[in-house]
């Protein structure tokens, strides 16, 4: 009798848990999990979006990988993009945050700087795209004007976004503009959490500013550092907004990244199988890298 009531109670508790969890789970499963798995299936078929899907095995992956220059460009650009985002804004943010927190700036000035640095992160990417497309414009753009004024005319007639040689660099600058302030603010917040006594003790021992940065600040924000790096890496792999709003992947296909390649194949050419294969490869790369990164982080913990 007693045991029966107990099992019923436990069962009831499980049911209540599932009921409370149901709306969250349902949304997630219907709109994220199932589509994510369906994409894997679509990548193994040929499909124009209407009509039946024809099973073609790995042939989409073959088309994607073998002798496909556009895939290689996308891969190269995604790698460049990721490397730049993981180094330049992080480095700029790190050094600037250190100046703000450890540089004896008046407190309110440091706060004001952070407020300004963070601004590009708050506004929409499209606004950034408008500003920077104008800056880079070959005819009207301020950048070429400045170059002319400082006597570098030979560089001044480049359409920065229209030239295959410069387009990725130009886009990376926009990315650095958006991202550096974010890194700075995150690192500054993390640095404020470091115990001030450590610095006092180091000063007594005669440690220089650089020593302190290397031996106290960097280890102190280690965790945040890896989190920011993983986040940045994920953002970089799936980048779409900045590049789509500024060049649509052009000129030609010279600023293609995975997300743009997949979007164009899927929604402009209706080659959904190929599009799915591209995106599966992107997801796999992203998962492997973030797994590797978090493993390194766990191992580095002591």
């Amino acid at each position, binding site marked *: 009798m007693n045991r029966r009531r107990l099992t019923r109670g436990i069962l009831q508790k499980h049911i209540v848990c599932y009921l409370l969890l149901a709306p969250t789970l349902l949304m997630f499963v219907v709109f994220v999990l199932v589509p994510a798995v369906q994409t894997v299936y679509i990548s193994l078929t040929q499909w124009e979006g209407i009509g039946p899907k024809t099973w073609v095995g790995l042939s989409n992956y073959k088309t994607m990988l073998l002798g496909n220059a556009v895939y290689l460009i996308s891969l190269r650009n995604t790698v460049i993009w990721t490397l730049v985002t993981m180094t330049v804004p992080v480095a700029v943010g790190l050094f600037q945050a250190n100046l703000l927190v450890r*540089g*004896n700036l008046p407190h309110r000035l440091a706060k004001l700087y952070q407020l300004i640095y963070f601004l590009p992160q708050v506004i929409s990417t*499209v606004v950034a795209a408008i500003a920077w497309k104008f800056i880079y414009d070959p005819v009207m753009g301020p950048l070429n004007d400045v170059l002319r004024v400082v006597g570098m005319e030979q560089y001044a007639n480049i359409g920065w976004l229209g030239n295959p040689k410069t387009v990725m660099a130009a886009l990376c600058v926009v990315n650095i503009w958006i991202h550096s302030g974010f890194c700075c603010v995150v690192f500054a917040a993390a640095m404020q959490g470091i115990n001030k006594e450590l610095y006092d003790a180091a000063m007594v021992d005669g440690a220089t500013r650089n020593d302190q940065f290397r031996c106290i600040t960097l280890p102190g924000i280690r965790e945040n550092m890896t989190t920011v790096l993983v986040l940045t890496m994920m953002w970089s792999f799936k980048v779409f907004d900045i590049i789509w709003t500024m060049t649509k992947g052009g000129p030609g296909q010279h600023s293609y990244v995975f997300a743009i390649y997949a979007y164009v194949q899927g929604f402009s050419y209706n080659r959904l199988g190929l599009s799915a294969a591209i995106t599966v490869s992107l997801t796999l790369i992203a998962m492997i890298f973030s797994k590797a990164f978090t493993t390194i982080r766990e191992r580095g913990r002591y």
Partner: protein
Amino acid sequence: MKETAGFKIYKHISSLLLVAFTLIPFGILMVTSLRSSEDLGRKGPISLPDTIVWSNYPKAWDLGNFSTYFKNSMICMAATVTFVLVLALLGAYVLSFHEFLGKQMLISIIMLGVLIPFTQIMIPLFHTLKGMNLLNTLWAIILPQTAMQIPFSVFLMRGFMRDLPKSVIESARLDGANEVQTLFYIVTPLVRPALVALLIFTAVSSWNNFMLPTVMIQKDALRTVPVGLNYFKDQHFTNFPMMCAAANLIIVPILLVYLTFQQKMIQGMTVGSLKG
């Protein structure tokens, strides 16, 4: 610590250089939006206009259907934020304070979602929504947007809830509160700071979301602000002053919100990288 003169100069110059780099594009937008096309053509971009011209703003507003875009973005943002907060609270509460069959498995599945980029789901999602007759409605933005936020927000709220003392929950139960009462009257007030951060994070991501509405919305009357502005940009790209005016129309409300809630905004938008 004693500061050398060199370090003093270095720290100010470094800070100001980054300020300049950050603000110059905004300055260019501002100056260019206040001049006429002819003025820009004659004097070049790096100059001040002869006369300040305000007419680019009403022109951009009229040509660009921006009031509709703002309305759509507001609706999407409000709905997404409401859904995400409720679902994250429910999900995180059950996953932090209860033991039940399959819990670990569910947690791993939901956490997998953090790693799924939008491209991985866009094609089937498009066809699912088409099948539900939701394509070209605002639901095609709200529902997937909510769903994509779930992994991160559950993860975040669970992180905060696990730090609460278990005794609080137990005493609530002893007093006879049921699950829903415990969640909304006991737990929710205790995690309020995290909830505010999540609210801001979700609101900003929703407001700036670009790829999802680009894929799902083809009707001009349903475009959100970023997608509408991008469309406007492609239509009128030769008219730089009007373009810059349009961009400023979008910046101003966001800037006002940002300046009013500065610290809260920054906390909310960096919450993922500080509590991880």
